[in-house]
């Protein structure tokens, strides 16, 4: 049953969506950030380490959905890796929970430069609904140097894809 299905899939139309249109302003802002920090170029492929700093797990559902066949993140040269030591991008969800602070700092210290830090979801941007709690330091900017914010509760896979592809475009535009 499996082999005939796989064979049929080889000749069927792909299930993957078209790539999204990218916001010019975001790419330009990221490009300026790259130029300002005169970072070395990472090229057209980025390895991403996802770190959950205390999300409700809604963001994880949508980040995982990026890897399904409809979005197929890897066709763009973007892939998730198992360790920050292998990563070009730290993609962080959730508010900066105090109980996660040390783990976040260690993850950053393990990520080689040049690198990007992306805050995903309203909580990572500014604490979201958990702003002001005794147990969080609001957005992850309190702990990590953030380069790109992708707001949303949670951001949809399409919004996530737009943000991550903007990083690639900014890298490509840099001389």
């Amino acid at each position, binding site marked *: 049953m499996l082999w005939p299905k796989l064979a049929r899939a080889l000749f069927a139309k792909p299930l993957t969506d078209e790539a999204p249109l990218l916001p010019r302003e975001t790419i330009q802002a990221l490009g300026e950030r790259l130029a300002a920090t005169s970072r070395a170029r990472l090229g057209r492929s980025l390895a991403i380490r996802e770190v959950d700093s205390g999300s409700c*797990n809604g963001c994880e559902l949508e980040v995982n959905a990026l890897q399904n066949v*409809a979005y197929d993140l890897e066709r763009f040269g973007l892939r998730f890796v198992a360790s920050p030591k292998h990563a070009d991008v730290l993609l962080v969800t959730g508010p900066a929970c105090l109980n996660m602070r040390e783990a976040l700092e260690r993850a950053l210290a393990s990520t080689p430069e040049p690198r990007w830090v992306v805050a995903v979801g309203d909580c990572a941007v500014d604490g979201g609904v*958990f702003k002001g709690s005794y147990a969080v330091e609001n957005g992850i900017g309190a702990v990590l140097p953030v380069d790109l914010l992708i707001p949303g509760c949670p951001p949809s896979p399409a919004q996530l894809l737009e943000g991550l592809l903007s990083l690639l475009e900014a890298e490509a535009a840099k001389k």
Partner: protein
Amino acid sequence: MMGPASELICGGYPQGTQPYERFLLSPSAWGQLPAALMQEPAMALLGIWADSAQIHACFLHESSGEAVLASTPVTGGYYAALSPARPGAVRFERMILELWGHHAEGAVDLRPWLDHGRWPLRHPLAAKPIPFSGEPPQPEFLPVEGDGIHQIPVGPIHAGVIEPGHFRFSVQGEVVVRLEQRLGYKHKGTLSLMFGTSPRAAVRYAARLSGDTTVAHSWAFSAAVEAALDVAPPPRALHLRALMLELERIHNHLNDWGFICNDAAFAFPHARCGFLREGVLRAIAAAFGHRLMMDRVLPGGVAPDIAPRGAEAILAALDAVEAEIPALMQIYEAHASLQDRMVTTGFLRPELARGFAAGGHVGRASGRDFDARRLPQNHPYPVLAFDVPVLEAGDVDARLRIRVAELGQSIALVRQLLTNLPAGELMAPLPVRAGEGVAMIEGFRGECLHWVRLDDGGLIRGIFPRDPSWLQWPLLEAAIEDNIVADFPLCNKSFNCSYSGVDL
């Protein structure tokens, strides 16, 4: 039929909680509770929590499905522990000590749990929290003895795109001798943020207790508020809630089915389930304007209404899911390499599932037949036709099969709900007054239990949202014993407990 524990509880002073009564027990009566519970094994403990002056516990009569609550005043900072009689009490007692500062006397285990020594205060929910600064202490793990035992520490950051938590494996060769979990990394102070707010403001925290269970928790919280205020949401709102609840179950079960197979390195079901689930999520977005249906269930009803073409989109997505389930199941069953990983792996003994009152697929794959959708107050379920699958095998395979069987049931429920969707209002007004209510709503993991107390101004003065994972996490420690380390991801995914849901 009343056992000694039931009699003891019903001998207390009724406090007027709706729809299940809460009885206030004297400290001496509460002190007899552990011994009475030992003599009444069918009295399941669903949760323990506190406020600044009292301890509250919720029990379920396993035979009748009736719940009852018991409370006792805390005297001199102490109350009698229930953990000697109910193992599920352990983590609640640890949590109560940290958040409220009440000591469980005679407790099995009071090591730190949520408080890692990194907050600026101790006992944040006590009447007077104590400021705290200093070095966070090193965690203490239970000792393990034997030849050649070594430890594997994993987390809090894991290798996959999953939530943070620490697992300490003690292994002998390849075999896990003991797993100990250390959670609490995601503690966000959710309860403190809910205190003193109106139910309308607090429901967004219930919706974000565990994002994958946003509908079930929003509904359980709203139902507890509605019980406290004696408000009945309009029939259309209840139907739409059930519709969303079943869609949430469908997208999560599809996700888990794929991921469990993926953790055995069998990618095909993962790819197909992921694609089918994406179709369901897009239909949900078309119908309700949000892929996970966050903030759609509100105290009093739902908002907004289902979109005009929403029903059509949902039915089309579910037809695709239903059409593919038999073929996917056939592939799952026909591959010996996959079956070898699933069958007999991560066995959870039925007596343990009963002892912890485990809900959802964890309990029902190990013979515990409970589903909150069968409770008479959970409208519209009493007028809907559905089966609750129960298996005895208790392994990874059984937990997967429960999910697949529930998928079929949920698809049928969605069709019934869409065919008989009543017309009318979506929201009932909420009066501003005092009250106390409790509710149980069956999420995809099991029953979400919420208790709410409102003051005269209609603001929240007491709250506890209990995710089903509280009673499932400890069982994962038991299920992994004597399995090889490499099978841990499979066992873990077959449970799929929520970290955020229990870290509060």
